[in-house]
């Protein structure tokens, strides 16, 4: 018999993150590196542990190897517990047949037995796509106070941007009367953050109804939530005021990293309050050489910098040789930039080698047509040859001479 848990978190980490292209060729999106030493999934996991949620089911499907290794026993997030803690939940075979997770709601449906063994009052549904610090215990407190069946965390966005989001239309008391998916003419600016808390009895009932509905795509946003609303369940919006960013595209991933270098952006990873935990490699402190010039940047352990680095985020064990320049870029672990190479407005994935004198990316102001400009991406393990030129917006997945 498992000890009862008031709230169990279910983290949807099976997404492919197809709009991150080369960066998610071999890893699931939640395992994508972010912020010099983290991966995206560190944020929801650390939020759980900091919010006092001790049981987290992580639903995996796409390219799970690296993500599974990374999660391990859950120790970095203090989630290695006897009964509770982190549990990886892949799709599995049953006596009769086997199913992939068909949609987000189906993924939870298939794991009802996992949730039931903790006999929770509430289930928190999270995704592994977002960078934010949030105290889920406040969300759950609001859910209880309203005696809601479902509470959805929302963010106020600019009205002109509202048509890019799933918008919730609410009554003055915060109750939801309509879901509006990417509306052409939005009625409100409350965008869903993809964070839901449910009263477990109600969620279970609606998961079963959704599963029985052959026409459903078994998706939370598209099917289950509208069905709950139609059935007259008590659904409320919970306003969140902090930093939140969906890092589902190359541009947003680049921006979210650059936000860390902007003192006016309210996302601070330094300091001991609401710490974000991660699994760290064992590398010595980084070394800044005699000829180096480093400003406005984040640099991790194990780096060796002899060139110029400005407005960049460098992960562990990156080397920037003498005379090389790294500007407005993100360099993931183990990447090497050789002598005289220039890397600007680029994301270089793990263990990329940039040959001497190569030039990657371009400054936007130097592009004749701004439409041609974009962040250049080099996939993991790729070698960019001596003197090679990689244009802006390029996506390099194989070695280039």
């Amino acid at each position, binding site marked *: 018999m498992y000890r009862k848990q008031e709230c169990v978190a279910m983290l949807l980490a099976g997404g492919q993150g197809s709009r991150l292209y080369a960066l998610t060729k071999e890893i699931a999106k939640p395992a994508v590196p972010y912020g010099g030493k983290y991966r995206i999934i560190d944020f929801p996991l650390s939020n759980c542990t900091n919010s006092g949620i001790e049981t987290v089911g992580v639903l995996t499907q796409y390219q799970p190897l690296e993500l599974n290794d990374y999660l391990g026993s859950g120790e970095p997030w203090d989630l290695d517990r006897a009964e509770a803690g982190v549990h990886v939940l892949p799709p599995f075979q049953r006596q009769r047949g086997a199913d992939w997770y068909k949609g987000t709601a189906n993924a939870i449906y298939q794991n009802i037995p996992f949730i039931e063994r903790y006999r929770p009052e509430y289930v928190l549904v999270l995704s592994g796509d977002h960078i934010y610090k949030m105290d889920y215990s406040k969300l759950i407190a609001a859910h209880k106070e309203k005696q809601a069946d479902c509470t959805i965390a929302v963010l106020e966005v600019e009205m002109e941007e509202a048509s890019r989001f799933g918008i919730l239309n609410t009554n003055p008391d915060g109750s939801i009367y309509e879901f509006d998916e990417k509306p052409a003419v939005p009625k409100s600016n409350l965008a869903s953050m993809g964070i839901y808390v449910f009263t477990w009895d109600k969620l279970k009932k609606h998961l079963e109804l959704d599963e029985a509905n052959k026409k459903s795509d078994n998706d939370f946003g598209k099917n289950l939530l509208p069905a709950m609303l139609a059935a007259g369940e008590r659904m409320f919006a919970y306003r969140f005021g902090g930093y939140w960013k969906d890092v589902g595209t190359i541009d947003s991933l680049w921006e979210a990293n650059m936000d860390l270098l902007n003192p006016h952006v309210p996302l601070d990873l330094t300091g001991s309050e609401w710490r974000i935990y991660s699994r760290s490699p064992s590398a*010595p*402190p980084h*070394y*800044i050489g005699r000829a180096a010039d480093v400003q*406005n940047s984040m640099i991790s352990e194990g780096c060796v910098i002899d060139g110029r680095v400005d407005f960049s*985020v*460098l992960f562990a064990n990156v080397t920037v040789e003498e005379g090389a320049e790294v500007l407005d870029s993100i360099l993931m672990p183990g990447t090497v930039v050789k002598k005289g190479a220039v890397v600007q407005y680029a994301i270089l994935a793990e263990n990329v080698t940039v040959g001497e004198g190569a030039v990657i990316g371009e400054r936007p102001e130097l592009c004749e047509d701004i439409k041609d400009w974009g962040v250049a991406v080099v996939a993991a393990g790729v070698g960019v040859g001596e003197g090679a030129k990689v244009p802006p917006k390029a996506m390099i997945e194989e070695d280039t001479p």
Partner: protein
Amino acid sequence: MRNNQVLGLLFPNARDEALGEITAARAMGSVPFGGRYRLVDFTLSNLVNAGITKVGVITKNNYQSLMDHIGAGKAWDLSRKSTGLRYLPPYGTSDEQYAGRIASLASIDRFLEIATEEYVVMSDCYIVGSIDFEQLLRQHILTGADITVACKAGDKVDFPDQLRLTCGADGQIQDITIGGNKKSGYTGLGIYVMKRERLRQLTAEAQSRNLGNFERDVIQRHLGILKLYSYPVMEYTEVITSLSAYYRASMNLLAPGTRRQLFTPERPVLTKVRDTAPAVYGLHAAVSHSLVADGARIDGEVRNSVIFRDVHIGRGAVVENAVIMQGTVIMQGARLNCVICDKGITVKDGGSLRGAASHPVYIEKGAVV
């Protein structure tokens, strides 16, 4: 491969007195070094990297910060069921207990008795180096030595009662002196290998004769009686047994060659994870020839220095030839040269501290300057 036949024994309090103020409130083993490490990390990593999974830590006093650091040994993969890390703190009623190495070994005799490992590697914790203990063990077994003493070549003595060894071509020790000026060729590093039962027997014998000094009464006394071999360590090592040695070793870390020898992929130096964000460089940062750990925030000038975690260096501050330990804050416009700042120091706006390269100034933990 797991090395089931070898037990590690660490003495983190050995030579505590040598570092004076740095070890006033901590054991030698927990002295911060190299931006993110404690001295014990080097020896503990050497043991683990040789496949040794059972380590006894023999503490004497001032070991609170050491226990904070090592914890259950998880960072070294030593949080295990049957083997793993064992703290062996003082035991008994008398204050005289643990007065010397032999007394402390005698008091853990029960631990040694029930251990199943055939060999014991004993080590002090003032050595910075990536030493291949597997090679040391292999040589010990191959030569059939009763005791193997790890040593380094040269006559330079790091502390007054360091062992001086004269050795034959086959490595057998021919003479041992302690103190004095006899040229010998090798000096001891406080690392010994022998069979567990041999250690128990030698300890009991010394104890029964009321002898208390391990080096003199166990090692030196058995010259010509037991087979004593030397094992010259070829790897880069620093012996941190004075403030100036600490400072020199810290500055040596800035040389790329030193780091290449110390931090190898085959034998990583493991330490406690602290979950600090990467270091942040501001608009006015100007850093050269320095080591900087995660969690640092730098907006001033830093040259030839080792900067630990969570150190803040304000705009316009100038830090040169310095070792700045964890959590120290150097405010705007302050100037530091040839200084060792312990943990959690505040140097206020415009403050100035200056030592000499041969005699760095040491500022004690928590001070406000």
